[in-house]
């Protein structure tokens, strides 16, 4: 009885222990494999997302305005470059139309099912980033589209430059993106990405397994021994594995060396995306998932 009295008198230690147990319980709850967020979380996220977009967008416009002024000088050169690109594009477009028509005819002849035909029809939804987490170990971004607009968990997110990350949780009006820089083999939540090389999609293969924060490079493992991957090649997603759509640009190969066991090669990949001052991102909606949505 006296012991209990002494214990209760030491209220601070007692409260600390209760707080600690609460902390462990909350962490355990959040680490469990949750399909959806709870409604208080959704409500808080939607409300704050609603306010945050008043801040992020105008700030982006103002910053963009100053960057535009800086870019004025380069406009002439850029215009020249774009003109030649457009000429090349027009040439390729004709070729593309022919090949597309041929391809459709072959699919018809080979008896492709409706699902197989639509497998690579992607729909790009434009979203605005509205806030970025202020935690160095968890750089979650929030965008202003949510489940009401057709966003689902595990959709890939890209910019014009390249892959940004994966939608990690959805609320009715916002969605959280886990950037590709959180990619980690030991992490329980993030999947590896199967990748290939632009221009040799059927010959090269590798798995992007983890992002090394210290060197700012992604590690690509399990590259075949006689793979012709070269330094400077562009790495894109291969679409194998089902989570990531195919053909999203990731970065360029920087180094290539023999892997741990000497049987495969590993390469380090420099990301194409710049994660600072992100304004617009594209959420990739696969056609098959669109059909499944009610």
């Amino acid at each position, binding site marked *: 009885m006296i012991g209990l009295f002494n214990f209760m008198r030491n209220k601070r230690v007692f409260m*600390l222990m209760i*707080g*600690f147990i*609460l*902390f462990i319980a*909350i*962490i355990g*709850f*959040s*680490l469990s494999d949750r399909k959806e*967020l709870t409604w*208080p*979380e959704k409500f*808080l*996220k939607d409300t*704050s*997302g609603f*306010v*945050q*977009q008043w*801040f*992020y967008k105008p*700030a*982006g416009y*103002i*910053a963009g305005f100053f960057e535009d002024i800086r870019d004025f000088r380069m406009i002439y050169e850029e215009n020249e470059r774009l003109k030649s690109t457009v000429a090349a594009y027009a040439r390729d477009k004709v070729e593309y139309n022919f090949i597309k028509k041929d391809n459709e005819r072959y699919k018809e002849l080979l008896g492709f099912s409706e699902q197989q035909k639509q497998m690579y029809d992607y729909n790009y939804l434009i979203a605005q980033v*509205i*806030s*970025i*987490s*202020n*935690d*160095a*170990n*968890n*750089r*979650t971004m*929030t965008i202003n589209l949510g489940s009401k607009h057709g966003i689902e968990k595990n959709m890939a997110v890209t910019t014009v430059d390249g892959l940004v990350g994966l939608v*990690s*949780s959805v609320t009715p009006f916002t969605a*959280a993106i*886990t950037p590709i*820089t*959180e990619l*980690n083999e*030991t*992490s*329980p*939540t993030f999947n590896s990405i199967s990748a290939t090389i632009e221009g040799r999609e059927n010959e090269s293969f590798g798995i992007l397994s*983890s992002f090394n*924060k*210290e060197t700012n490079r992604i590690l690509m493992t399990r590259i075949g021994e006689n793979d012709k991957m070269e330094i400077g090649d562009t790495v894109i997603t291969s679409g194998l594995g089902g989570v990531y759509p195919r053909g999203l640009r990731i970065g360029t190969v920087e180094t290539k060396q023999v892997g741990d066991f000497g049987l495969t090669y590993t390469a380090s990949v420099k990301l194409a995306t*710049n*994660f*600072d*001052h992100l304004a617009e991102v594209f959420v990739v909606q696969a056609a098959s998932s669109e059909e499944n949505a009610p």
Partner: protein
Amino acid sequence: MSMNRIVAIMLLLFFIEGSLMPWIIPEGYGSRIIPHFIFVFVLFSALYGNRHMALLLGAGFGLLQDVVYFGQLLGLNFFAMGIIGYFTGVLLERKRATVMMAITVIGFACILYDTALFFIYQVFRITSASYAWALLNHILPSLFLQLAFALVCYVPVRRMFESRKETGENGEEE
């Protein structure tokens, strides 16, 4: 200064550090200089208010931050902000801290906070970087931002909390 005003100002700061600061921080430093304005505010409340207010504000805004920026773990900021705020209050609320004193305490508390976050993430294997790298990469650079913020808002915030304390004490006497 009423509690409502303080909470309103902190909410504004919360939105600023999530939505405005990414644009102000120069390109290339986005993942190196990271604002923790809410935490600095909690420390001010511990230094010039009292420890229970710091605990409440820290835990409340920590939880808000955890939920809004939920990535892998909930409850980290809830715990770290609350407890660091509370113990700062236990240590220093009886003394009237000077500017130098306040800035030093805020500096050390920020390092402690970032370190605590880093090690919790490391325990759960969400980050695999080494502490020495984290220290040089983001803990020390963002410390300067926090100190600058603390210096800029030192006078108004101190006045805000102290006026609240005085009116609170007068209220109790009456």
